[in-house]
């Protein structure tokens, strides 16, 4: 198989994830879009691991999965805290830190 099939699929998923991060207003939806981006990176890493025939890409992919789990845990805790304080998780209303 061509490596480009996997790389182009990863690129398309990455772009869809970027669209979601910019266009979504709900905090949970933004976190889901970030998951799409992280998955596209994993596809690239595994494709290159197979192409080069070494194991390092798989190790990095596993580390990315672990970091993504930690990120979702902390992110959802933050979303929950924002909801508790403001009764809304619309991210464009969070403007207290704007100078």
């Amino acid at each position, binding site marked *: *198989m061509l490596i480009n099939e996997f790389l182009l699929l990863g690129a398309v998923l990455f772009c869809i994830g970027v669209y979601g991060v910019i266009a979504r207003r709900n905090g949970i939806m933004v976190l889901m879009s970030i998951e799409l981006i992280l998955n596209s990176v994993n596809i690239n890493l595994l494709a290159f691991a197979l192409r080069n025939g070494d194991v390092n890409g798989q190790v990095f992919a596993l580390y990315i999965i672990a970091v993504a789990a*930690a990120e979702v845990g902390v992110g959802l805790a933050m979303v929950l805290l924002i909801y508790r304080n403001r009764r809304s998780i619309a991210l464009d209303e969070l403007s207290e830190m704007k100078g």
Partner: protein
Amino acid sequence: MLLAAQQNVAQHIAFGIIAAGMILGAIRVVTTSNVVHAALWLVTVLGGAAALYLLLAAEFVAVTQILVYIGAITVLFLFGTMLTRARIGREGGLDNPYRGIAVVVSLLLAGVLGYVLIDAFSDDQLPEEPIITTTQQVSDSIFGPYLIPFWALSFVLLAAVVGAIVLARKD
């Protein structure tokens, strides 16, 4: 030779089906107006990614993907939806007014990435007989040369667990 060619065709068909499903699911994740549906479409994308990892001869990563992403992260998302919203169903106001900018940015990014990838890797084949990396090799690598990042990752996870509890605790 013929058998290898047939396997190749089968791989291409499997890849096409999985890729189409993943792209459809991803587009639904970022466009649907129901948070629960978005989480369920995300499951199809993550499952398709696990199937692609199998095609890429990385079984351990595929199983980890299913366990961690589909098993744990999706449940976290559904819990987050449940805890932050009174009502499960269609909902307006999930998108902000920057949709046009988002479309332009992502299409631009897709164009640049596609141009670069086609320019750089257009005739780069994956090996016909891939070198199978066993789970033993993966673990040897994690606990050998990548031991320090593994420790760092353990601390990241510990900090994330403690931080999530501290953030979400009522006091």
